[in-house]
């Protein structure tokens, strides 16, 4: 194949002649002969567009995309309005890069400015950055900010935070040397914060997730108060859909809000690209990771947007940087903003409400089944955990045969017997689907 190179053989000959070269190989004369790859890459020959798509289509066909989805755990099966695909996938957004030249990047810059405003409103914060990779890495960045701001290495991380997110925090702590302390959940499925702690181990950050990994509503105010007691920053990993109904982290006094932005504008997509949400109080703006878009004017005094406070960023701070983020998730942020704008003020609340209704409806149906018990009993919003009479992984396998993705089996830390199952219900799930799901569930666990 051509490698999508436009040059004809004649073009190449002409250009080589301009350079005084006789062959393409001479372009690579600087590469020591011993390093040159003899015989080419060990890859199949190129294929036509149609053949490539047929191959990819065959792979896609080996996935079950038809399952009725009750799985969540940070990845939710929401309806995505047509406008998202048609607007966020316009090639002007898709094929631009970082707006280094603001004069020709006002489209991306303004879209990001609107995204930042929407996220600040959702979280009750004053500033939001132009996106991070995903919820997990946004949590890492929040921890890094807090440690840098407070000057202590210790971090208290609720076990109600998504297990994978915690795992990522631990991975990166190996480099930064943070001392990450996990705080377990109590029997009611919410974080059991320690009452008193010695001076030596005071944290720089207290991290809580709302709703938490079991779907339970946490007392965010208590986590914030605890952080204040220790002079630490409070970090709330907040679900953006629940924001339609819940008090914001900002209102409850949190310093930093992070989260996973996938529910708005992004399909399940096997986990990526998703969207790391990051917002904070204004006082932390000079430690904000990643890019920030600000409003300004051009030389003619017209409103314009530009990436600002650039001296925070890794390419300028170099070894003094506290974050190395460069490429982010701008396109996913644009999709998020389009979906949210389409929902608007009333639609967001209605969406959150419908998720909560479906969740209650499904929870009541499952808990009515003999042997199914609540795991972490108490208020939930869009997701809940149950203990099932059979191993959760087995249940999920059997339910696949009936056309359902029944949920996500919980890690042993939540249920050592492997019978914990996390179930999510979005506005896509109808009462009829939930009824059928519960009936199948009952059949499978019997």
């Amino acid at each position, binding site marked *: *194949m051509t*490698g999508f*190179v436009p040059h004809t053989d004649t*073009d190449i000959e002409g*250009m*080589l002649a301009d350079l005084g070269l006789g062959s393409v190989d001479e372009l690579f*004369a*600087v590469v020591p002969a011993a390093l040159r790859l003899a015989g080419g890459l060990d*890859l199949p020959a190129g294929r036509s567009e149609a053949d490539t798509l047929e191959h990819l289509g065959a792979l*896609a066909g080996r996935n079950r*995309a038809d399952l009725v*989805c009750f799985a969540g755990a*940070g990845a939710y099966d929401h*309806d995505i*309005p047509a*406008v998202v695909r048609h607007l966020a996938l316009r090639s*002007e957004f898709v*094929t*631009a890069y970082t*707006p280094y*030249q603001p*004069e*020709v990047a*006002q489209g991306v810059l303004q879209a990001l400015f*609107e995204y930042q405003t929407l996220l600040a*409103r959702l979280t009750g914060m004053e500033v*939001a950055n132009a996106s991070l*990779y995903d919820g997990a*890495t946004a949590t890492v960045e929040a921890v890094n900010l807090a440690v840098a701001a407070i000057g202590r290495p210790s971090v208290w991380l609720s076990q109600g935070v*998504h297990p994978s997110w915690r795992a*990522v925090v631990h991975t990166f702590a*190996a480099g930064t040397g943070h001392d990450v302390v996990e705080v377990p959940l109590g029997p009611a499925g919410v974080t059991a914060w320690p009452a008193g702690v010695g001076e030596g181990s005071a944290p720089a950050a207290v991290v809580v997730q709302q709703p938490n990994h079991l779907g339970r509503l946490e007392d965010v105010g208590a986590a914030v108060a605890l952080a204040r007691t220790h002079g630490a920053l409070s970090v709330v990993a907040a679900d953006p859909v629940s*924001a339609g109904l819940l008090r914001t982290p900002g209102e409850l006094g949190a310093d930093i809000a992070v989260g996973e932005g996938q529910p708005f504008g992004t399909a399940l*997509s096997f986990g*990526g*690209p998703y969207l790391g949400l990051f917002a904070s109080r204004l006082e932390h703006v000079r430690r904000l990771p990643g890019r920030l878009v*600000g409003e*300004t*004017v*051009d030389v003619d005094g*017209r409103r314009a947007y*530009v990436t*600002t406070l650039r001296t925070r960023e890794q*390419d*300028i701070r*170099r070894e003094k940087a506290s974050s190395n983020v460069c*490429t*982010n*998730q701008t396109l*996913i942020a644009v999709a998020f903003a*389009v979906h949210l704008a389409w929902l*608007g003020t009333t*639609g967001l609340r*209605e969406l959150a409400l419908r998720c*909560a209704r479906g969740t*209650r*409806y499904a929870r009541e149906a499952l808990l009515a089944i003999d042997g199914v018990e609540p795991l972490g009993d108490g208020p939930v919003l869009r997701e809940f955990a149950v203990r099932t009479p059979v191993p959760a992984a087995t249940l999920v396998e059997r339910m696949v045969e009936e056309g359902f*993705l029944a949920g996500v089996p919980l890690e042993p830390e939540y249920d050592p017997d492997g019978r914990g199952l996390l179930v999510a219900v979005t*506005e896509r799930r109808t*009462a009829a689907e939930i009824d059928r799901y519960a009936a199948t569930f009952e059949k499978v666990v019997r």
Partner: protein
Amino acid sequence: MSGHEGQGGPVSGHEGQGGPVSGHEGQGGPVSGHEGQGGPVSGRNGRMRAHDGGPQPGPAAGGRATSAPIVGRAEEPTIFELSSPGRRAWSLRATGVPDWPAEELVPAEHLRPEPVEVAELSERDLVGHMTRLTHRQYSVDLGAYPLGSCTMKYNPKLCDEASALPGFTRVHPAAPEAVAQGWLGLLGELEGALCAITGMHAATLQPPAGASGELTGLLLMRAWHTERGNPRSKVVIPDSAHGTNPASVTLGGYETVTVPSDERGCVDLAALREVLDEEVAGIMLTNPNTLGLFEEDIVEIAAAVHEVGGLLYYDGANLNAILGVTRPGDMGFDIVHMNLHKTFAVPHGGGGPGAGPVAVSERLAPYLPGPRSVRDDSGAWRWETPARSIGRVHGWHGNALALVRAYAYIVACGGDGLRRVAEAAVLNANWIRHRLRGHYDVPYDRPCMHECVVAAQTLKRDRGVRALDVAKRLLDEGFHSPTVYFPLIVPEALMIEPTETESPETLAALAEAFIRIAEEAGEADAEAPRGTPVRRVDEARAARRLIPTFDARPPA
């Protein structure tokens, strides 16, 4: 169901556009003093008068929009200004679930009393707004984008098609292996292809961007040394390195040691040998380097670093130059990150998402992040976490749909096509360098790889025209600017990466534009650009009077 406004409704006046001036949105609302109140100038397509400049007054419900961004110079209002109470685009499916009120679902202490104020727009207004924004945006699909170090190549549309297949998009990341065999198979195949291209043994596809890949690589380095008794304390990088490198080194818990470049623009081997000792965990190199030059001493560099027990890290930012020509693994590198959004046709998305897989040699494979997709004896794919894994670096499996795009690109190109990519990329860069010689400074004037660095030092000295001015002038010529002021070791640098997908005719036009700018260089260049949606932007003001959200705007 909700009636979508502007869709099939009986409303006669088109919102905002299309009709005569009457009936534009916002009229009849309780709004006074909103922008454009001097009386809209009617014209073809109801175009409003362009604003005269200066920040507009505060929010006004249903702020007037105009299609002038494409035909003139009007500002585009934000969605918050376009918002009008009661207007909506949304509709949600009928579920048949009982409609319990919020108060019964959410405990009072958690329930917010008022909805979050988002914006209230019709779908038509939202589409109009976003479409007008796209008309204020340069992109690869529009024209050449010679932004050095970023590899802004054309991304074939078949990759978009592949990544939009419902069989990929509608799969939950926690789905059991048995129902995601296509996904696991794709990831496994892609890992194999990337290893074949780089000459490495195994890879993680989790890192969602190049910087994440760098940090992953440094943590691999740390794990390797830690297990041998001493994590070591220093990582060496050349003075021409990307800024991300030293930032990653710091976050990896290491101290940066910088080695100078020699007069050829390559790592000074003697200087490198001086800093190497048993506290050096490794070296991070980009090859070809950020000057677009191949590190000819790479074999000697590798031997010297390995001699003190250090590891070699390959920053794959410039991998496009060597596809099918040579491989980092053959050069002696132990850890390689790739930017799939540069080399393998994942579009850059206005700043992301990208993907930054990390491939390693056999001895480092046990430390890779997990899980990885591996094939068992029966031919089925399953997840497996390497024995001494450093842990996860992403919440799920990385930027999966970006990985589909890269895989589709590699399949379509094949080994032969990838080699042709490198050839044309290197040919184009050398041709541009050749054309610009004599018009711009060429600080390291020897054959380059996929990009070349020229400079505006002489222009600045003789005519007061800086690299920044050249970049802005180029916008008026209809091209995106090159990367400027990087690498840091070249004053007034203009780093040009044409990529392989630009034709010789486009290259010639680009070169002519550069040359015209040099020939006409003068005071007027400080005024460039003139023909862009906005002109030079006051960056100092943006930082001094920070307005990070619409709500932070000062009152009108």
